[in-house]
């Protein structure tokens, strides 16, 4: 029983990291309909940015994370503005755009290997202290991860719900054509969304290394399946659904890991993804079936 509860506790930590990353994916996927296969590598990139600002400029952890999130946002913006946008303008086939993001994933992963080597790196995080909260056992870093996630998601909620930018974003996610009739420029909204996507992904990458401390060039790529699974389970383009999807995936994965070898984390993530696609492909939390392709 204790083992199960502690696994649920770890699940909440994984869910927190997943939630930030899959909300970011869901927002971006919602406006432009492209599953970004380089998304996992943006998490990796954020970890390396934080590590570099720590090692090259002796930045403290907070500053390192902020720098990392901002730089990741810039990278995401550049990817959209200078690569994907030119493909969209050239009216490229949909699968072409998917392959382009896989190409970007390969470039980022191997770029890191070429510049910094394939071996794992360690971010220096404050000393680990175990805290018992109710039935759960967390390190203080893991508690911070959950606080960061909660704060980030509240900010996302406020921006989406109460600001003009957030409303425009939701409008484009619903229907780019209708949105442009009302004077919203979808291209600008997509650019802004990629910037926000990159920033959120940067935070997720930092949260990931804060909880694990070590990382390597494929850390984020290995996280891609649970991120996509959480976004699909929640209903693509539905950031709130992605939060719940992340909760389901995070807890299921860590509970599995408590009883089986770690490789089965991905098996359970895949099983949940497959089950949702077979039974409720529109995601668990989408009530209305929308017609047409990816919107």
């Amino acid at each position: 029983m204790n083992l199960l509860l502690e696994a649920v506790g770890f699940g909440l930590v994984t869910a927190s990291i997943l939630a930030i990353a899959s909300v970011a994916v869901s927002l971006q996927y919602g406006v432009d309909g492209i599953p970004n296969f380089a998304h996992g590598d943006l998490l990796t990139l954020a970890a390396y940015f934080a590590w570099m600002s720590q090692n090259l400029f002796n930045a403290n952890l907070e500053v390192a994370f902020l720098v990392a999130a901002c730089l990741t946002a810039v990278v995401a913006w550049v990817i959209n503005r200078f690569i994907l946008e030119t493909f969209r303008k050239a009216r490229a086939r949909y699968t072409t755009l998917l392959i382009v993001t896989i190409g970007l994933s390969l470039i980022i992963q191997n770029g890191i290997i070429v510049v910094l080597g394939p071996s794992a790196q360690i971010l220096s995080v404050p000393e680990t202290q175990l805290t018992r909260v109710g039935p759960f056992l967390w390190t203080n870093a893991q508690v911070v991860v959950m606080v960061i996630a909660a704060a980030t998601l509240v900010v996302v909620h406020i921006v989406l719900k109460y600001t003009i930018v957030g409303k425009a974003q939701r409008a484009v996610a619903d229907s780019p054509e209708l949105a442009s009739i009302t004077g919203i420029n979808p291209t600008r909204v997509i650019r802004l969304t990629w910037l926000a996507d990159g920033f959120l992904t940067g935070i997720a990458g930092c949260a990931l290394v804060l909880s694990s401390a070590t990382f390597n060039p494929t850390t984020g790529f290995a996280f891609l399946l649970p991120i996509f699974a959480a976004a699909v389970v929640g209903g693509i383009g539905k950031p709130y659904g992605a939060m719940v999807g992340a909760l389901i995936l995070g807890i299921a994965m860590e509970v599995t890991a408590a009883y089986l070898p770690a490789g089965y984390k991905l098996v359970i993530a895949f099983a949940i993804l497959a089950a949702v696609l077979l039974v409720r492909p529109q995601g668990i939390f989408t009530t209305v079936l929308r017609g047409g392709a990816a919107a």
Partner: protein
Amino acid sequence: MTIYVVSVLINIVIVMIAAIGLNVQFGWGGQLNLAYFTFFAIGAYVLAVVTLGRPTPDSGESYILGLGLPWIVGVAAAVVTTVLLGLGLGFVALSRALRADYFAIVTLAAFQVVNSVVTQQTNLFDGAQGLYGIPQPLPFITTASDSYAVAYLGICVVILALIYWSLSVMIRRPFGRALRALREDEAGASAFGISAVAVQLKAFVLGAGIAGLSGALFVTYLTIIDPSSWSIGEEFLLLIGIILGGTGNLRGVLLGVFLVVGVFTEGLRLLPEIPSHVGAINGIENMALGVLIIVVLRWRPEGILPEPVSYDLA
């Protein structure tokens, strides 16, 4: 020198077989199957455990089966296994509205899952250690000789020719037309009574079987297989061969594989390794492939030899 050239040729021919199999799914069917190389690896593993004998206790190896059966049985088992797995994965990936994004996500997920299970479940295929010493099919020639490699190259070329011929016939038949029609306009093709899921699933299963066959051929020659030898980079190598040569054009695919595997990666292998940066050459190779695919897709998406609009006029 002969042995080097022949082994490069064997590699190219086997990758060509794999690539024309992926062309059925991706080129003609429009399916971005990111698990294709996983089927290749499964074919290789199945051939290995069917033809290898039981592991001896003091070798420290552990794997399933170990039947010690003849090579041809191993090849058949590899194809049957990948066809059945293709049926299962294809059913999940194609089941809903054939959405290209879900299809790619599900197949990428399958790649990651199979790789992590094979690595961690060590009693399946000996985990990260991998399998080695896979028996050779031509007992009448010694494996170390040049003539062995030449004979094996001959077998691979014959198989490539057979598959190439069957596929070029198939694409002119109603099934091939239906497949291409669905790729261009699913709703339109369905209106003509084409069952989208059935046709797409057939193409997926056919591709999976060819992947399994090419994996079996590959592991027979290499005699070793482990999880590190199939990454998303290998999958990408096939994709870029197809796209560079001409998506959907069989001759183009062969040309693309020759350029990517024969010229590009073999050329890079001649570069000296940088002592301070182990693995840097491999990293540069993968980065260059990523850049190459983006450049080709941007400026010549149809590839060097474009697919003919209609095979009847070609």
